[in-house]
């Protein structure tokens, strides 16, 4: 990605980029494998009668939201997939900041995800700070939202990541 100037950042804020559809529908096999991996006995995921009464039918654990987008390890004739959080890497490269860290991430859960759903994700840059100096070095903070929507366009979840791209203190400018 080429250099990003201050005017370019304004144009990137709030614009959905890297729209991608999950490579398979939400399915119960992965729900059970995930619940089994953490010994989660919540009857919502194991007892259809409870799911019918409480959630109007089967749902997937909310924290599985990103699972539905991890690509297969191999797929026939596949082109290179976009990296998760591609905007993070675009900013790092475009602003010429050699190092970057993610300080924290937040997931906000909206419409329940159900078996059979076809989910779509997109990445949205929310903000980029003015240059700041921290103990790591001098750089900029940015916030990137990853939005997940179902086949009806309803918001299922938003993950927000705070990144800090920087040049090490004392390093070559």
């Amino acid at each position, binding site marked *: 990605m080429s250099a990003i100037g201050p005017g370019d950042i304004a144009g990137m804020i709030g614009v959905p980029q890297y729209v991608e559809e999950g490579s398979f529908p939400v399915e119960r096999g992965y729900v059970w494998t995930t619940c089994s991996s*953490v010994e989660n006995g919540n009857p919502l995921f194991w007892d259809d009668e409870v799911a019918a009464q409480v959630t109007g039918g089967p749902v997937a654990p909310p924290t599985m939201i990103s699972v539905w987008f991890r690509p297969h390890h191999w797929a026939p004739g596949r082109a290179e997939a976009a990296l998760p959080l591609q905007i993070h890497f675009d900013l790092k490269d475009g602003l010429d900041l050699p190092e970057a860290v993610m300080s924290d991430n937040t997931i906000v859960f909206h419409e329940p995800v159900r078996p059979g759903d076809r989910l779509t994700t997109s990445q949205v840059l929310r903000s980029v700070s003015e240059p700041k100096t921290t103990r790591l070095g001098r750089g900029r903070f940015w916030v990137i939202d990853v939005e997940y929507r179902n086949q009806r366009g309803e918001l299922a979840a938003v993950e927000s990541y705070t990144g800090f791209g920087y040049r090490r203190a004392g390093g070559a400018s």
Partner: protein
Amino acid sequence: MSTPVRPELLLGDVGVGDALPELAYPVTATTVVLGALAARDWRPMHHDKDFAVERNGTRDIFLNTPNQAAWFERFVTDWTGPFGRLRRMTFRMLGSVFPGDTMALRGTVTGTGVDRTGCGWAALDIVLAVGDETKTTCAAAVALPVTEDDNPWGRRGDRWTP
């Protein structure tokens, strides 16, 4: 005729400072690999010890982040029962969890309330620790029924503002 399912925990049962029941779990290589594959995370540092040691500089393979999220979810809903509906979670990763570690999840209620749509909620501070060392922190908010007849899962659109 099916038996009606009733909430196990209502908002009124919960107070600031309450502790959630602790969850202790001995992590094995199987825990790490099963969790990584369940999360479709095929990266070698979650199943290949030589790779983790030589390339990541860690002492072994380690739990991946999405699977830790699943552990936190289980910890919260073990306490709330099926009527508990997660609103949000904020994670901060501080260290890795390896086979041989016994991880302990501990949580405290930091706030409770009812939002403008009438949805009850509890805010939680949760720590995943190994011994004295905090590995991951999670600030979570979970919706809880306000009454026996309330169900946070029934909320949609403008009535769900997490």
